[in-house]
């Protein structure tokens, strides 16, 4: 086990506590997909990303795009816990006047590199960021977390073609492969099964990992960083609602608000109050 794993495990628990608390307070939001991405987000923000919370627009910073913008509670929690803005902002999620919009907005929230929400846009926009970095001779990486359901969107595959053709080796995409979309299992709703094969066919470097295992997450990122000629996709097998026993693999938590008792039970399980 890598020495940083205990720290990342604690950070991820913190993010999950924040996610459940925020959605409870807001009365609206998507817990399931936020929780499935929590370990990926924790690894990026507390170990991998070269960012400076005091200088969020630093031109040479690594870029991050949350393509599955509806999972923004976990994103906002990470930005707050990393110091981009005070954690006191978190309870304002989705409220009038809040810098924390219902989906991420780049010019309202410090640390958010791109507006997202409408699905499928992380990879094409990330490709633009990666191409711009190459033109500017900056060595930053561009990371994207996309959902698996949103791979239904055609624009994803438009960008898969062109990013490979442009040899954008510093573009690294995680697929948060929790297996669900809004209407049910992806295999039932839209039929998408093998996610790595189409990326491989377009010429991407592909890996598959357990998206809740920090050793595997960090190892996969290192391999992706070492790949210079091809964009990388890391298909991370995850559990929707991961980390809270009664939300795991229950798609009713795709978009659902925990009540007071559910929040208390979740916080107790996650070691908070």
């Amino acid at each position, binding site marked *: 086990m890598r020495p940083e794993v205990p720290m990342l495990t604690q950070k991820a628990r913190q993010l999950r506590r924040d996610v459940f608390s925020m959605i409870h307070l807001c009365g609206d939001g998507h817990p399931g997909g936020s929780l499935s991405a929590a370990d990926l987000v924790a690894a990026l923000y507390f170990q991998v990303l070269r960012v400076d919370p005091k200088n969020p627009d630093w031109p040479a910073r690594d870029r991050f795009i949350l393509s599955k913008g509806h999972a923004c509670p976990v994103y906002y929690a990470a930005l707050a816990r990393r110091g981009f803005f005070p954690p006191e902002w978190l309870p304002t999620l989705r409220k009038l006047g809040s810098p924390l919009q219902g989906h991420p907005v780049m010019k309202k929230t410090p640390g958010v590199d791109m507006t997202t929400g409408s699905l499928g846009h992380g990879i094409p*926009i990330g490709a*633009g960021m990666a*191409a711009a970095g190459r*033109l500017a001779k900056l060595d930053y990486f561009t990371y994207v977390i996309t959902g698996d359901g949103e791979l239904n969107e055609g624009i994803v595959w438009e960008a898969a073609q062109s990013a490979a053709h*442009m040899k954008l080796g510093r573009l690294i995409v995680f697929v948060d492969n929790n297996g669900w979309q809004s209407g049910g299992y992806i295999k039932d709703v839209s039929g998408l099964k093998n996610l790595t094969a189409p990326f491989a066919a377009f010429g991407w470097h592909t890996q598959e990992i357990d998206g809740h295992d920090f050793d595997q997450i960090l190892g996969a990122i290192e391999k992706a960083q070492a790949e210079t000629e091809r964009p990388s996709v890391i298909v991370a097998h995850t559990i929707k609602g991961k980390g809270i026993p009664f939300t795991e693999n229950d798609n009713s938590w795709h978009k659902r608000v925990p009540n007071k008792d559910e929040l208390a039970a979740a916080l107790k399980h996650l070691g908070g109050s």
Partner: protein
Amino acid sequence: MDKITAMDKIASTREAFIAGLMDAAPDDPKLCLVFADSLKAARATPFTDKYPERCFEVGICEQNAVAFSAGLASTGLKPFFNTYAGFITMRACEQVRSFVAYPHLNVKLIGLNGGIYGGEREGVTHMVFEEFGILRSIAGMEIVVPADAGQVRKATRALAQREGPAYMRIGSGREPVIFDDSMPFEFGKARVLCEYGNDAAIFAVGPILKRAIIAVEALAKEGIKTTLVEVHTLKPLDVETIAGVLRKTRAAVTLEDHNINGGLGSAVAEVIAEREPASLIRLGLRDVFAESGDAELLFDHFGMGAPHVCDAVKKLIAGKRK
């Protein structure tokens, strides 16, 4: 009208756009070009030969091209994305709205084959006469429609200096030359081209301005004195100039290579309704689709000829006398 030429010459607005970009590029290393297999249509080889590293070809996928451009712009680059106007503004409409306009990114969208003048023989799929209405309803989007190639070149340089999202319509490459080279282009200003009198105002946008000029002269020969205004910037609209003209004429005809709904006619109607009451006749496609054919013949066929402008003016004047 001293800067208006004989209008029998043709010059390419497509080549003029690239020329304008070439004018601006040496002093601005952030300017770049994005294509959706549109390099040839854009006549862009002067730029791609000189600045190959600043060119990005994504293939035939306009949604991807706009989103990719947003990614470029988020880092401070100034991408110009150039392809068929309808494919930018209709196929990639959501990307324009949510990922360019909403984050107010510095992406310039250059739509070629705009209107009937662009699509001509290609037919309706390759024309667009809805995009003024589409883009006018998107917050923060600037819209420029220069009248000829010389103006396109100057407008391109003007857009390169501006921050934020903008759209410029250009044509097929066979547009009439309307102005001589000394005519400036001032972003955001409606331009009173002639003031024979206040019998009626004629507002026109884009290369079809040529027909409005012919109409104004024909009317003058009959003793009907009009004021001709070119509205090359549809957004932000120069409401003050338009309202000032309406105050004097109280009658207006709009002429545009666009559906009468949503474009210049609608914009002027909004000024009339909110600022200066006037009677109005909108000329353009009367909520129908065009078809393939020679552009000039199509304009005549669909009611956008100089005689149509003259008839509309006479009708307004007759209405005033009642």
